[in-house]
C-alpha cells in the first residue's frame, strides 16, 4: 500500500507538496472568496517575458519570473483601482500586453531557444533543496499574511461596494493580498509546474467553499484538502506511472465534481462520500507495477536520437529507458515516475546536450541518482554556432549569414572520415567561399552551439564511439559485444553518408538551395553542401512568430533564387510553410524530421531511417519532385 512512498524522490515530492499545501490552502481560500482566480492564472502566465529576458541577458529565470510578477501586480492593481468595474478586462489586457512583449522579444530581439517556455516549470518528481526552501518560505509568508492581514481583508468583506466607503485604506491591504498571491503562484509554478497552480490553489478551496460558510473552516479545510489530494495524487501517479501534475489536477477535479453533485442531491452526502472513495479506489486499482531485475546495465537516454544510438550499441545487453518518447512534445514534457526511477537507478545517463535536454542534469541530481552523465555533444568533431542561424533575411546581402557556418567545414575536414564525401564537399566549400564570413567553425568557450548535431553523420560516428566507451566501462564483460555493435553501426552510418553525398551531388550546385521551417538543419546542409537561403520561424521557442515583412522578403528570396521547396517539419505546424508555398509556387510537400525521430512504424523511427527520409525529401524538393534518393536502410 505504501510502497510508492519508499523511493527518495517520491518522499521529497511528498514533503514539497505538504509544505506547499499550507500556502496553497490559506491563500487559495482568499482567491476563491475574492474571485481572484483569473489574476492568479494571469500572473503566472505573464512571467513569460521575464523568462525571455532572463535567458537573453543571462540572469536566473526565477528572478525574471518574480520580477515580472511584481510588475504585473503593480500594473493591474493601479489600473484596477482606476476603474473598478473593468478589473476583469484590465487583467486580461495586461496579460495580453505582457505576452505580446514576450513574443516580440523572443522572436525579434533575442531569437530565444526552445527552452524559454520551460525554464521555470518544475516537477513534483524533481525537487531540489531550493524548491523546498521556497515552499517553506511561501508557507511562512502566507501564515504571517493571514495572521496579520486577514481581518483587514475581511473588513473589505465580499461586498466591494459597501467596503469602498467603509475602509478607504483598504487598497494597501488589497495590494498586499495580490502580492502574496503572486509570490505563492510563482513559488508553486517553479517547484511543481504550471498545471498544479490552479489544481492546488483554486480547486480545493472552491470545493471546501461549497460546504462551509465559516472562514476558519474554509482556511483549515482547504489546507487539509490540498494536502490530502496532493498525497493521493502523488500516490496514484506512482502507482499508474502518470505525470503527478496532471494526476493531482484530475483527482482535485473529481473531488470537486463529487462534492458539487452531493450538494445538489442533498440528503445523500454520506452516500456520495462513500461513492467518492469507491471511485478513487477503483481508479487506483486500475494499474499495478511489476518490477523485473535482469542484472543488465541500466541506462537512460534523454532524446529519441540518443536512445537510438545507445540501443544500437548496447543491443540486448543493456536495460535502456528512453525518456522523451516520440509522441511527447519536449515543451510540454513533465517526467513520469518511471522516467525518474529509470534515471535514479541508471548507471549511465546519456544526454544530447545544449538547449534540448538541459533538464536532464537536474533530473539526475534531484532523483538522488549517482549515475555517470555522458553529454554526447561535449566533444564533437563538427560544431556550429547556434546564434548565427537566427538572423533575419533583410535582403540578399544577408544570405551569407546563413551560410557562414560553411566555415566550420574547412576546419573539420581532417576530423571526418567519409573520404568520398569530402571531395564533393570541398568543391562546395570553395564555391561558396566568397560568401563566407570569417566566423570559425568551432564554438568558443561559453558560446552556445547549435544543438542539432546529429544531422551530421560524422558527429553520429563520434557519438557512437563515445557511447561504446561509456558502456564498456560500465560493463567490461560485454566490451567486445559493444565494440562489435558499434563497428557495425558506424559502417552503416558511413555507408549512408556516402550514399547521401552521391545523391545530393547529382543535383547541380546552383540548385542546392532550400528554405526550412526552423533552423534545425545547419549540420545537414553544412555536411552535404546545400545552401539554406532562409528559415520561416525566427527563433526556436514555440511562441516565436515571423513578421509580415520578413515573410514577404523570404518570398522575394524564394523567387529570385528559384528555390524549389519549403520544408515543413514533423513536429511543427506546416501552416506557414504551406502559405509560402501558395504564394511562391515552391513545394511544401516534403516533411523533414527535425528535433525528434518519428514514432514506431513511421519512416523516421530510427536515426538511419530518419536520415534517409530527410535526404530523400530534400533532394526531391530541390529537384522539383523529379528525383529522390533510394537507400537500403535496415
Amino acid at each position, binding site marked *: 500500500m505504501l510502497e510508492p512512498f519508499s523511493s527518495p524522490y517520491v518522499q521529497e515530492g511528498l514533503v514539497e507538496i505538504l509544505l506547499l499545501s499550507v500556502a496553497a490552502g490559506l491563500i487559495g481560500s482568499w482567491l476563491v472568496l475574492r474571485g481572484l482566480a483569473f489574476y492568479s492564472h494571469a500572473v503566472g502566465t505573464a512571467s513569460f517575458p521575464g523568462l525571455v529576458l532572463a535567458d537573453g541577458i543571462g540572469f536566473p529565470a526565477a528572478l525574471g519570473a518574480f520580477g515580472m510578477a511584481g510588475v504585473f501586480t503593480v500594473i493591474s492593481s493601479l489600473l484596477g483601482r482606476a476603474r473598478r468595474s473593468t478589473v476583469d478586462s484590465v487583467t486580461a489586457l495586461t496579460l495580453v500586453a505582457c505576452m*505580446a512583449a514576450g513574443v516580440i522579444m523572443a*522572436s525579434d530581439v533575442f531569437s530565444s531557444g526552445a527552452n524559454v517556455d520551460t525554464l521555470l516549470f518544475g516537477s513534483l518528481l524533481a525537487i531540489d533543496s531550493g524548491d523546498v526552501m521556497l515552499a517553506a518560505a511561501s508557507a511562512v509568508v502566507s501564515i504571517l499574511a493571514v495572521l496579520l492581514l486577514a481581518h483587514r481583508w475581511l473588513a473589505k468583506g465580499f461586498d466591494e461596494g459597501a467596503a469602498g466607503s467603509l475602509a478607504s485604506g483598504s487598497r494597501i491591504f488589497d495590494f498586499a493580498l495580490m502580492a502574496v498571491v503572486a509570490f505563492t503562484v510563482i513559488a508553486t509554478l517553479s517547484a511543481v509546474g504550471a498545471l498544479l497552480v490552479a489544481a492546488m490553489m483554486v480547486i480545493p478551496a472552491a470545493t471546501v467553499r461549497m460546504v462551509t460558510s465559516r472562514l476558519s473552516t474554509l482556511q483549515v479545510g482547504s489546507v487539509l484538502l490540498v494536502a490530502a489530494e496532493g498525497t493521493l495524487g502523488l500516490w496514484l501517479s506512482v502507482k499508474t506511472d502518470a505525470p503527478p501534475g496532471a494526476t493531482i489536477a484530475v483527482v482535485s477535479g473529481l473531488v470537486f465534481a463529487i462534492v458539487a453533485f452531493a450538494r445538489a442531491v442533498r440528503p445523500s452526502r454520506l452516500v456520495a462520500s462513500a461513492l467518492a472513495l469507491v471511485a478513487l479506489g477503483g481508479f487506483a486499482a486500475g494499474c499495478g507495477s511489476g518490477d523485473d531485475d535482469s542484472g543488465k546495465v541500466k541506462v537512460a537516454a534523454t532524446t529519441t536520437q540518443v536512445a537510438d544510438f545507445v540501443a544500437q550499441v548496447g543491443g540486448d545487453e543493456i536495460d535502456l529507458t528512453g525518456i522523451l518518447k516520440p509522441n511527447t512534445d519536449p515543451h510540454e514534457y513533465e517526467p513520469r515516475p518511471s522516467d525518474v526511477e529509470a534515471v535514479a537507478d541508471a548507471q549511465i545517463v546519456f544526454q544530447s546536450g545544449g538547449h534540448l535536454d538541459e533538464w536532464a542534469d537536474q533530473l539526475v541530481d534531484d532523483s538522488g541518482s549517482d549515475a555517470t552523465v555522458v553529454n554526447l555533444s561535449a566533444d564533437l568533431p563538427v560544431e556550429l554556432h547556434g546564434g548565427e542561424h537566427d538572423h533575419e533575411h533583410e535582403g540578399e546581402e544577408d544570405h551569407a549569414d546563413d551560410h557562414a557556418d560553411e566555415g566550420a567545414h574547412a576546419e573539420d575536414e581532417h576530423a571526418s572520415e567519409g573520404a568520398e564525401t569530402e571531395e564533393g564537399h570541398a568543391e562546395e566549400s570553395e564555391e561558396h567561399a566568397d560568401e563566407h564570413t570569417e566566423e570559425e567553425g568551432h564554438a568558443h568557450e561559453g558560446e552556445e552551439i547549435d544543438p542539432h548535431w546529429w544531422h551530421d553523420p560524422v558527429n553520429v560516428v563520434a557519438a557512437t564511439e563515445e557511447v561504446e566507451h561509456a558502456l564498456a566501462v560500465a560493463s567490461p564483460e560485454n566490451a567486445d559485444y559493444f565494440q562489435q555493435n558499434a563497428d557495425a553501426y558506424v559502417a552503416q552510418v558511413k555507408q549512408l553518408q556516402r550514399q547521401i553525398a552521391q545523391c545530393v551531388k547529382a543535383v547541380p550546385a546552383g540548385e542546392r538551395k532550400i528554405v526550412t521551417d526552423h533552423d534545425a538543419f545547419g549540420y545537414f546542409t553544412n555536411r552535404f553542401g546545400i545552401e539554406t537561403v532562409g528559415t520561416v520561424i525566427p527563433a526556436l521557442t514555440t511562441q516565436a512568430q515571423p513578421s509580415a*515583412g520578413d515573410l514577404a522578403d523570404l518570398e522575394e528570396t524564394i523567387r529570385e533564387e528559384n528555390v524549389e521547396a519549403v520544408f515543413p517539419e514533423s513536429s511543427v505546424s506546416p501552416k506557414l510553410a504551406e502559405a509560402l508555398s501558395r504564394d511562391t509556387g515552391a513545394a511544401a510537400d516534403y516533411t523533414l524530421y527535425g528535433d525528434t525521430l518519428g514514432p514506431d512504424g513511421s519512416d523516421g523511427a530510427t536515426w538511419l531511417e530518419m536520415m534517409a527520409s530527410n535526404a530523400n525529401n530534400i533532394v526531391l524538393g530541390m529537384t522539383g519532385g523529379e528525383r529522390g534518393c533510394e537507400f537500403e536502410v535496415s
Partner: protein
Amino acid sequence: MIEWVTEPLSHGTTLRALVEIILIGSVSGVVGCWVVLYEISYSAESLAHGLFPGLVAAALLGLPLLLGGAAGIIVTALLIAAVARYASDHADTAVAVVVTSLFGFGVLLALSPGTPPGIQELLFGDLLGVTDRELFAAAAIAAVVLAVLWLSHDRLMAIGFDSGSGRSLGLRPGAVSALLLTLVAATILVGVQSLGNLLVAATVIAPAAAARLLTHRFAPMVLLSVGIAIGAGVAGLYVSYYAKTAAGASVAGCLVLAYVGCAAISALARRAPRPHDGFRAAAGPVSRAARSPKLDPS
C-alpha cells in the same frame, strides 16, 4: 503614399492576414462587448485549452481532429456555465476548476501511445499562415455568431444588466450565460486556427474594453468596438510589415495600445461634466450570482 499602403498587399500572406483580421475583427468586436459586459474575460482567454482533451480523444478514436476540438471546447464552455451557476461564488473560480481538470485529463489521455506528436499545435495557427479555407470558415462563423447574437440580443441585455428582472420576465440566467459562452467558444475555435490563442484573446477583449471607456450606450459601443478591432488590427499588420516584428504579437500590441489611448481620452473627457452615467454599475450575473451559503466571519 498610396504605394506605402498597397505594397504589403501584393504579398499573398499579408493580404490574407488582412482579410482575416477584418473578418475575425468584425465578429470578435461584437462578441467582445458581451464578454466585457458579462465579465468573462478569463473564459475568453482560457477556453482554447478545452480544445486539447477533445483533440486527443478524437485522435485516439480516429475521428476528425476538428470535430474533437469543437466538442472539447463546447463541453468546456457548458461545464463552466454549469459550475458558475451551481457550485461557485465567482465565474472565474469555475473557469479555473473546469479548465484545469479537463486539461489534466487531456494530459493523461495523451500518454497513450496512439497519440500523434505535437497534437496541441495542430489546431493552432499563425496570422501569416491563414488559408483560404480558414477565410471561408471565419466568414461563416461570423455570420452565424452575429445572427444568433442579434436574435438573442434582448435576452442577453436583460440578464446582463439585471438578472432579477430578467428572471421575472421568464428568462433563465444560466441558460443565457451558457448560450453566450458557447458563442464565445465558437469564435475562439475559428480564431485560434488562424490567429493563435494570444491574438484571439486580444481581439475579443481589447476593442470592446476600449469602446466601453468611450461610450455608455450599447449600440455605439458595438460599432466603436468593431472599428477599433479592424483599425488597430490592420495598423498592427503594417507595423509588422515595415518594422519586421512578430506579426501576431504586433497586432495584439496595437490592440492593447488602442485600449490605452481610449483610457487616456476617457480620463481627459471625465474632467468635463457628463450627462448621464448608468452604464458602469452594470455587472454580469455570472460573476455576482452567489449560490453558496453566505459567509459569516468567525
